């Protein structure tokens, strides 16, 4: 039993490890082999060195940026889910809200950041978190709304036979049905939140943030330090992604219960 579990653990971990190491090796090799100048693309080993040299700064910066990302993520998810609920409860709203959400989403961060900075100032954290929230909002909204609306007729009919109201149908059918869709959105949004936080930081705010560390070092062509900061941010984004996967697993237990058998056969 434990052997089985261990085996499945190992089989989950080795592929990303192998590919990750492969990418790094290729990268390192390519830089050395093609004599790519390090001020264009630094070697992973130089990045690693700079990561250690600047660890204190980077750790602090990623913590500060992480707070922005998480805060914005939370706001964006809550807003996205709330709007998705409204959009399912009131169809007409859906028709009005969707294009609007699209419009907001098509506005790049670089345009939003100055506006939000103007509104909320650059010295606080509201502006940056709202930038993140805006980016997070759309995928959550679209996916969740889809999951809430595209429910199997049979299931709705059953609930209607119980005279279940909209609210109960929402709770018993639509929400469980939307969970995989929501999880899908989470996967997309987790890394996006980090990048949004970083880009928002280009446009103002305290200077002990990852975004600033990256831009200021890149501006001076110190790309090894910039990439070290990126590596820290990536690690943070990756851990958010893993968190999203965990939430997915925990919130859809019926999938893992049956899937095991379905996937044995290829």
């Amino acid at each position: 039993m434990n052997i089985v579990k261990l085996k499945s653990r190992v089989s989950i971990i080795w592929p990303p490890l192998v590919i990750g190491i492969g990418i790094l090796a290729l990268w390192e090799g390519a830089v050395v082999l093609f004599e790519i100048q390090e001020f264009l693309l630094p070697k992973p080993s130089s990045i690693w060195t700079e990561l250690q040299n600047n660890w204190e700064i980077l750790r602090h910066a990623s913590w500060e940026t992480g707070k922005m990302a998480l805060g914005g993520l939370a706001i964006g998810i809550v807003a996205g889910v709330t709007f998705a609920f409204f959009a399912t409860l009131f169809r007409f709203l859906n028709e009005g809200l969707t294009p609007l959400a699209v419009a907001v989403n098509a506005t790049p961060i670089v345009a939003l950041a100055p506006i939000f900075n103007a509104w909320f100032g650059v010295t606080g954290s509201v502006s940056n978190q709202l930038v993140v929230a805006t980016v997070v909002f759309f995928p959550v909204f679209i996916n969740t709304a889809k999951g809430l609306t595209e429910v199997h007729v049979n299931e709705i009919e059953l609930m209607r036979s119980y005279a279940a109201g909209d609210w109960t149908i929402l709770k018993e059918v639509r929400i469980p049905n939307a969970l995989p869709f929501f999880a899908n959105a989470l996967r997309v949004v987790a890394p996006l939140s980090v990048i949004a936080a970083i880009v928002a930081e280009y446009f103002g705010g305290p200077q002990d943030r990852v975004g600033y560390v990256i831009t200021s070092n890149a501006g001076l062509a110190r790309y090894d330090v910039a990439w070290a900061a990126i590596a820290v941010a990536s690690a943070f984004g990756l851990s958010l992604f893993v968190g999203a996967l965990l939430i997915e697993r925990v919130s859809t237990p019926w999938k893992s219960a049956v899937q095991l058998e379905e996937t044995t056969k290829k």
Partner: protein
Amino acid sequence: MNEKSAISINSVDKVFNEAREDEVIALSNIDLDIKEGEFVSLIGPSGCGKSTLLRLIGDLLEPTKGSVEVFGKSAHQARVDQDYGMVFQHAGLFDWRRVSANIELPLELHGWSKADRSTRSQEMLDLVKLPDFGSYYPRQLSGGMQQRVSIARALSFKPKLLLMDEPFGALDEMTREHMQIELLRIWEETGTTVVFVTHSIPESAFLSNRVVVLSPRPGQVHSVIDVDLGKRSESTRQDSNFFAAATEIREALRAVEEQE
């Protein structure tokens, strides 16, 4: 059984995709009265509109023409009053709920306490002979087992009106006969009204007070056959009246088929 009307269907038509090239007249000019406490079966060739009729009664579809009344009120009101228990042709279990939670769903909606619910769901699991499967997910069960769970779900809260669409179709003969006896027992105990769709002639004869034979394209009531076998028991299946009723139904169905 008393003489109060449970269901009254008045000149009902149902047309799908009206005025489109794939228009289907599923039901045409249906008149039917079902008394409270009656057990009525619907039988007829595949595609003749049995499921559609059941869904009209259950207010899951609206008639294109005519009206459906249930317990003296509109079908809609009856549904809102939670008078219905339904078993669909497809088991229609929720993948994300364990078997026992599926059975408890209508009880939850009726506001039962947690303890009562779990007692009842275990009772129902025993009834459908799946005592140990409460903690499984539906996808882990065989087709027949899923169907039984869906029956357990419909019976669990003793509805005033039971609408069952080929509930025993996926069951083996033994289980089926067991379920028939159990269904009759519940029906007698609770005085519930049952509308039952089936393809099995013996089943319809064994269970019902009346058998409604539908003819297809468009679905119409071909004939209504009264079955009077008194209180059913296993021995009823050997009863000559039972064979007579079955033969009468078979002949009506033959006539329907030939007419086609």
